[in-house]
């Protein structure tokens, strides 16, 4: 693989390092200055001596750059932060610092009308972050040789890391726990951001920090650790997720978090259908709807024509079963189709579901769903005497309604993760992937394609229905308009598919991460109003350009999309000629 290790701006190594370190230090310090004179800009950046709002992001970036710069110097005790020994991570960190600082400066200028609103502190921050960046550009970084691509594009090859120092198991586990605690803090920060500027800055910084940490080798190290201690890592991840409501003082963001979980769980269910079995389902949200409607009908809501109130477990089973039946009914005739046809038919069925729910209103059809008004006033769940609608004091923290539902949903998510992981790695899962890869060959291997596709469809539907039963209670009301193909807010079929593809097809964490982002971005960027979908589209294009395999690449997809980066093996002779000559 041809990469070279050269600076982008020719500087002597010593000077480059010094400039980077000084710039990083100055950036860090500048976060404590006043950047603007008025508190009109959200977050109050007028205080000297204490960072506020976006300054925290600059501070984080500055510190990370400083630490990586010192590691690059080889300062003992900090070298562990850069196991790869490459300065690419440092460059990304410096980039992140400059990006988030200049984003803030521009945001101030736009919000307050003019750069005149910047205090000297703001200028110092801007200059310092650029100094760090220039210094980092002078460091020898691994990149594609000149001429093959534009100067800055860093090489994608991940050289194997030097073997890690052997740590005692307990220390490794502790590291995992600390990492997940930091992760929880970072995600909580993102969910809790109160204004669009801060969230945008957060996203920018998060992107660069993740890139920096993976190039420095820290994230790959962590990944290796989590693979080594998988059960503990999974446990820590769920413990961190369960910890979220305990960090909250009001229900404002726990409701967001509960809805993220619902969306993410449904996306994971869709990943079975799309990511594993390769069936493009454009009407998947209908299964969520079936589950929600089924649960609403048996919830004891006064608007439900069936005046029964199932206990929660029975309602869940009803929702999941109803969804599964619906899945089989749709799947049985359509799964004989291949490729594009299936996409079109599922798209149609998704719409049919919504329209049918609209029409079962007593005038255009039997009175079951109340039409467009939906089924309102769905009572809160009560599980073993624990009413999820009320506040409870747990471990000294008062958990409100949405916190309760969040925790309940987390259990459902855990169940779906378990199903996905276990089925994906089994005879059935392999058959699905085989069908996705080449259905004809799969059938020639003795796989009953139709039956397995139907199984994937039914399982996916069933899991979405399960999530739907919780959703009905979380949102009090189910209406047909919650289940459309596309609109500006999730969940809808288009966003679900985007979550799977952006996150990473065939992986577990991919759709979870993708769904979280796709839920938060439109929610937090409501100030963009009319341009929201445009911004969303641009984000999608950028992401697909940078990481076609999704944010979390599955081992296979990574190989698939970055073929050129893999040490090439002998390629088939005259393949094109051969593939043409019939089977």
């Amino acid at each position, binding site marked *: 693989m041809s990469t070279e290790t050269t600076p982008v701006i020719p500087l002597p190594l010593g000077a480059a390092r010094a400039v980077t370190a000084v710039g990083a230090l100055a950036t860090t310090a500048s976060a404590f200055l006043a950047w603007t004179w008025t508190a009109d800009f959200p977050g109050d950046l007028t205080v000297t001596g204490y960072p506020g709002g976006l300054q925290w992001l600059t501070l984080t970036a500055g510190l990370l750059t400083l630490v990586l710069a010192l590691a690059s110097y080889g300062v003992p005790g900090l070298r562990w932060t850069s196991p790869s020994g490459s300065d690419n991570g440092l460059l990304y960190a410096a980039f992140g610092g400059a990006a988030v600082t200049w984003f803030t400066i521009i945001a101030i200028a736009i919000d307050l009308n003019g750069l005149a609103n910047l205090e000297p502190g703001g200028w110092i921050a801007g200059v310092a972050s650029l100094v760090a960046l220039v210094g980092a550009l002078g460091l020898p970084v691994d990149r594609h040789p000149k001429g093959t691509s534009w100067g800055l594009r860093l090489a994608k090859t991940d050289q194997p890391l030097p073997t890690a120092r052997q740590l005692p198991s307990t220390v490794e586990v502790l590291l995992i726990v600390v990492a997940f605690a930091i992760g929880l803090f970072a995600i909580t920060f993102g969910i809790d951001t109160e204004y669009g500027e801060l969230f945008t800055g957060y996203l920018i910084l998060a992107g660069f920090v993740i890139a920096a940490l993976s190039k420095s080798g820290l994230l790959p190290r962590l990944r290796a650790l989590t693979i080594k201690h998988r059960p503990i890592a999974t446990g820590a991840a769920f413990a961190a997720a369960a910890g979220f409501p305990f960090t909250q003082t009001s229900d404002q963001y726990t409701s967001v978090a509960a809805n993220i979980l619902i969306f993410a769980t449904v996306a994971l269910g869709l990943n079975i259908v799309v990511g594993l079995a390769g069936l493009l389902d454009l009407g998947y949200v209908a299964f969520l709807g079936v589950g929600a409607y089924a649960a609403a009908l048996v919830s004891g809501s006064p608007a439900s024509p069936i005046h029964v109130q199932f206990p929660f477990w029975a309602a869940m089973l009803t929702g999941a079963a109803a969804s599964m039946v619906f899945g089989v009914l749709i799947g049985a005739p359509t799964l004989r189709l291949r490729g594009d046809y299936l996409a079109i038919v599922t798209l149609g069925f998704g719409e049919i579901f919504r329209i049918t729910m609209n029409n079962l209103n007593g005038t255009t059809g039997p009175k079951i769903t109340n039409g467009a008004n939906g089924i309102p006033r769905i009572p809160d769940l009560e599980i073993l005497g624990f009413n999820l609608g009320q506040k409870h004091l747990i471990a000294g923290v008062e958990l409100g309604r949405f916190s309760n539902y969040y925790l309940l949903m987390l259990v459902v998510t855990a169940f779906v993760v378990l199903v996905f992981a276990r*089925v994906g790695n089994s*005879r059935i899962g392999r058959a699905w*992937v*085989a069908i996705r890869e080449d259905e004809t060959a799969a059938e020639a*291997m003795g796989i009953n394609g139709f039956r397995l596709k139907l199984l994937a469809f039914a399982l996916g539907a069933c899991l979405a229905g399960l999530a739907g039963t919780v959703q009905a209670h979380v949102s009090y009301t189910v209406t047909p308009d919650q289940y459309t193909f596309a609109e500006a807010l999730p969940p809808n079929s288009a966003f679900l598919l985007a979550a799977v593809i952006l996150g990473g097809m065939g992986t577990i964490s991919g759709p979870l991460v993708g769904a979280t982002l796709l839920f938060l971005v439109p929610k937090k960027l409501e100030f963009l109003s009319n341009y929201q979908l445009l911004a969303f589209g641009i984000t999608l294009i950028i992401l697909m350009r940078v990481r076609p395999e999704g944010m979390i690449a599955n081992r296979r997809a990574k190989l698939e999309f970055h073929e050129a980066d893999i040490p090439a093996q002998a390629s088939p002779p005259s393949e094109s000629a051969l593939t043409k000559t019939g089977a």
Partner: protein
Amino acid sequence: MTTTTAAAPATTVGAPLLDVRGVTMRFGGLTAVNDVSLTVNQGEIVGLIGPNGAGKTTFFNCLTGLYVPTEGTVSYQGKVLPPKPHLVTQAGVARTFQNIRLFGNMTVLENVLVGRHTRTKEGLFSAILRGPGFHRAEAASRQRALELLEFTGLAAKAEHLARNLPYGEQRKLEIARALASDPGLLLLDEPTAGMNPQETNAAEQLVFAIRDLGIAILVIEHDMKFIFNLCDRTAVLVQGQKIVEGDKETVQNDERVITAYLGAPLETATSTDEQAEDAT
């Protein structure tokens, strides 16, 4: 891998395994396979040759249920095979493809494990619950798959992605994957296409080794040396019709074979871009 080197015909040629009666396949006006009958006996290696476009692959597709023959029946061990690929494999007839059709983004080992599909039963619930039965079956499948990789000489590449294998090894993997379904009859469609002489030689040894496992083989090839080294019997297909069948001498000395290959104008002899299966 194997020690068999002699081209001696198998001594234990047994009862008929595959019995094809009057198979005809028409695509609209084109008769790609015309009233072909053929038997393959236990322990036999039978060759199928013919110019490009003669209908060999189409004939294979009729046997394996990829195409439903317009006329005729295919029976295996006395039972008529239903025209469904997975049922044919289940019955014990496995195949490879002329244009390699591996599961490119699965590992080599996973490809072979997929081949075990019909011989294992673990379903959805078993996979979710992961009882001891599941682990036992999974371990057994793995064991068997690794044996087959050992047998075909791919053991060292078990964790590689199939698509990254060199061409010759991809062909071997197709064979390993087909063998994973414990077939009684293996259909090979041009197993040495695109191979160099050394690789062809190794493929020859592999075919003998498979026969020694008690698996009968029906093989399509253009490489005459390969065919006549290997096969107990060879059938020649020209323009959809079987014109001769017999041992090396019979086939080599047959007038019609010579004209079909060397002289007479056959417009199909040059057509190269048919895509037999993609039409299904």
